Structures are given as structure tokens and as C-alpha cells.
């Protein structure tokens, strides 16, 4: 028991140090660029780029709902894949039962996909 948790801490402690180091590297590089970069700012440089002319209106506009639909579909299917992973790891021990159970699970998922398909949620018009 103790050994497992120790290993757990060691592995994820490593990941934690990677996280800190990654942030550190990013901050250091940005700071270095801040130190050495050119500063002859033209006031027009800070306008929004719209191929030359003055920008028209704001960019923060209501978005097409299809982005939301795809995000929703993604959340559903991604959670389902997380259910499939542990099953896949112990599949060889489960045998026939595991196969039928997963067949039912994937059949239900496919029905959901088919429903979204028929409803036109997968259509990017």
C-alpha cells in the first residue's frame, strides 16, 4: 500500500515539476524577448488587422450555434471513450462477457451517433 502511494507521488511529482519548469521556461523566454526586442511603436500598429482598412465593428459577436453542437457532441463521446479505456485494459481477463457488454455499450453509442446524424447535427451547412 505504502509503496503504491509512494510511486504515485513520485510519478506525479515529476509531472508537477515538469509543469513548473514549463511555465518557468515560457516566462523566462517572454521576459528575455521583452528585454531585447525593438521598441519603435507606430500608433497604427495596435489597430486590429483587417487587411488595411479600418476595422468594422467588434469581433466579439454571437457565434453560430453549430460550434456549440459539436462541442456538446465532443463532450458526450469523449466521456464514453474514457469508459472504454479501462475495459480495454482488462479485456483479456473478461472474455466473452466483456465482449457482449461492450457490444451493447457501443451499440447504444452508435444509436446516439445515428440519432445525431439523422437530426442533422453532424451537418456543417
Amino acid at each position, binding site marked *: 500500500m505504502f509503496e503504491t502511494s509512494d510511486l504515485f507521488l513520485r510519478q506525479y*511529482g515529476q509531472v508537477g515539476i515538469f509543469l513548473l519548469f514549463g511555465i518557468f*521556461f515560457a516566462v523566462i523566454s*517572454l521576459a528575455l524577448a521583452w528585454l531585447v526586442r525593438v521598441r519603435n511603436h507606430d500608433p497604427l500598429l495596435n489597430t486590429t*488587422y483587417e487587411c488595411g482598412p479600418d476595422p468594422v465593428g467588434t469581433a466579439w459577436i454571437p457565434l453560430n450555434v*453549430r460550434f456549440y453542437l459539436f462541442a456538446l457532441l465532443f463532450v458526450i463521446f469523449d466521456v464514453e471513450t474514457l469508459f472504454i479505456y479501462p475495459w*480495454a485494459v482488462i479485456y483479456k481477463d473478461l472474455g466473452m462477457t466483456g465482449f457482449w457488454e461492450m457490444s451493447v455499450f*457501443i451499440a447504444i453509442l452508435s444509436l446516439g*451517433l445515428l440519432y445525431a446524424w439523422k437530426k442533422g447535427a453532424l451537418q456543417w451547412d
Partner: protein
Amino acid sequence: MVLPVWTQSQKRAFGVLSAISIAGAGLSLAIGELSLRFNQIWKFVTSLALKIAIPSLLVQIVSMILQCSILIGFISVSVMFIVWWERKVSAHMQSRLGPMETGGWHGWAQTIADAIKLLLKEDVIPHEASPWVHRLAPVLAFVPAFLCYAALPFGEGLISADLDIGILYIFALSGISVLGIVMAGWGSGNKYSLLGGLRSAAQSVSYEIPRVLSVVPILMFAGSLKLTAIAQYQSGFWRISGVPLLPKWFIFYPFIGQVAFLIFLIASVAETNRTPFDIAEAESELVAGFHTEYSGMKFSFFFLAEYAYVFLSAGITAALFLGGGSGPILPSWIWFLLKSFFVVFLFLWFRWTFPRLRVDRLMEFTWKFLLPWSFANILIAGLVILL
């Protein structure tokens, strides 16, 4: 029989391409050799430190920080190499020469010059932008890419954190980078950026699902999520009456392996937003997509992240489908790097072979073709294991 006659430019292209590939192999040799030497030296130093009673936790932390530095070095060098390589390969596929001046020999120092240029560029934050979202986005795109390298096995014993859930960890973290891209798109206050960011997000999340599912048959065969264990599982040969025929790499599993490999490769190219799936930054319609308003170091972080993911995808492909570090004679890390760079070459090859997909075709392709096939592949693999 008529032998094909090569034109002068084809001969030259072939010669230069092979020279470049050999140079790439040489570079990876040098990097790997260095890190392996380092490993030995490090073991010696650790034992010495333990002898003179320095606390082991401290030794471990210092060791991890050194590993981080090596990996950052590796990422930077390999990204620089891949960028230069891409430019050369692209150029020769179009009968051009590509960079030839910088550094002398075939423009080898071109990317270094580019990096210095990017460091010196002035920083632009548009008036319309949300300043902190704009600043944080590149960091958020890069850090997960770096974190993923922690669990990438570069060969036997060359892995920083050999997590039990290795492959899941990499998929989970590479999903976070989408957030950085959406933040860049939204935070720039630019219509092109917004559209590019959202398209990229929709595309990445859609291709994530077949990508994650296509790996499931491998997990069923190998019975582990650990990348080293999966690579280990693929060592050895299939023999017909004692004669080794094919290595037991997953890509050689009849049908299941090829389907999984194709789905994974296509989805990986789409995940990294590269041509033919680069509608997110389609320059003919969206300027530069989500990084339209980025310049200098912040831009280079997006660039770094993209190419870090390219090598990461290639590395995972090598570990999952091409047997990781298994191979004869040469040490395992050479095999790993050779296989990875081969997959990177496939990525570059795709770029100049396939035309860009239209956005509706792109989404339909993953949801209506790749996803059903990956489900089917899981069930077929299940049946094969049972029989």
C-alpha cells in the same frame, strides 16, 4: 524494358533529400548519444550524492529539473530541425531549392536565424484585444505540449515519468492546448482570429475522438496503458517455421493494425492543424487564423507548440504502432528517433500531396467515416482476441 530517365533537377532533388535525411539521422544519433551518456554520468553522480548523505528527495528533484532541461533542449533542437527539414522537403517537392544561404551548407542555420529574428520582433497587443487572455494563450498552448513529453518513451529507460496511464495522460494534456488556441482566437479581438480559433477548436475536438478510440485495439492486445509496456509488447517476430518474417509491430496486425494506424495518423495530422486539415489557418481566407495578431516570441510559442505536437504525434505513433525502440543492432533510442522522424516525414509529405479539405467535408469525414470505423475496429479486435 524502358528505364525511367531522371532529369537533372530530379537527380539533384533526390541527392539533396537523401543527404538531408542522413543529416537528420546523424543529428538524432548525436542527441541520443549525448542523453545516454548523460544518463550514465547521472547514475554515477546520484550514487555519489547518496554516499555523502545528501537527502534523496533533493537528488530526485535536481534530477527531474535536469531532465526537464534536456527535454526542453531536445524539443527546441528537434523543432528547429523539423522546420528546416520541412522547408527543404517542401522546396524539393516543388522543384525549388529552399533555404540555401544562411549558415553555408544548404541553409542549415535558417531556423536559428528565424528564431533570433522572432526574439527581436516588437510585441503587438491590439487595442481591441483582451490583454491578459492575449498574453496567456501562447503559454497555455505550449506548456501542455511540453508536459506530454514527460511520458514519451525515447527508448529503453529513456523516459522521465513512466506513468501507468501514459497514453491517456498524453491524450488528456494535448486536449488542453485547444484552450490556448480558443483563447488566442477570442482574446485577439480580430474577426479572422476568432473564426480561426473556433474552427480549430471544432476540428481538434472532433478528430480527438477517433484518435483516442483508434488506440483501443492496441490496449486490448497489450493490456496496459503504459507506453513502455505497449512498446515492449511489440518486440519479437512473427515466424513461419522458425524464419522471422515480420516484426510484431502493431501496424502489421492484419487489418486491425492498418485501420487503427490510418485513423490515428489522419486524426493526428488533423489534431496538429496541418495541411490538408488546416482550414483553421487557411491563409487564403483567414490570413493566419488564430495567430493573426501575434508577433515575436508569443507567435514563436504557437509555432513551437505546433511542431512539438508534430514530433510528439510521430513519437506516439512510433511507440504504439511501430514497436517503439525495438530493432536490431542499433540501440533502442536510435530506432525510436528514426521511426519518429520517418512519421514526421509522412506529415511533411501529406502537406504537398493532398489539397485542403472544405470545412463541411472535414467535419463529416471524422464524424461519419472515422468514428464508425474506429467503433467497428474495436469490435473486430474484440472478436479476434476471443477466437
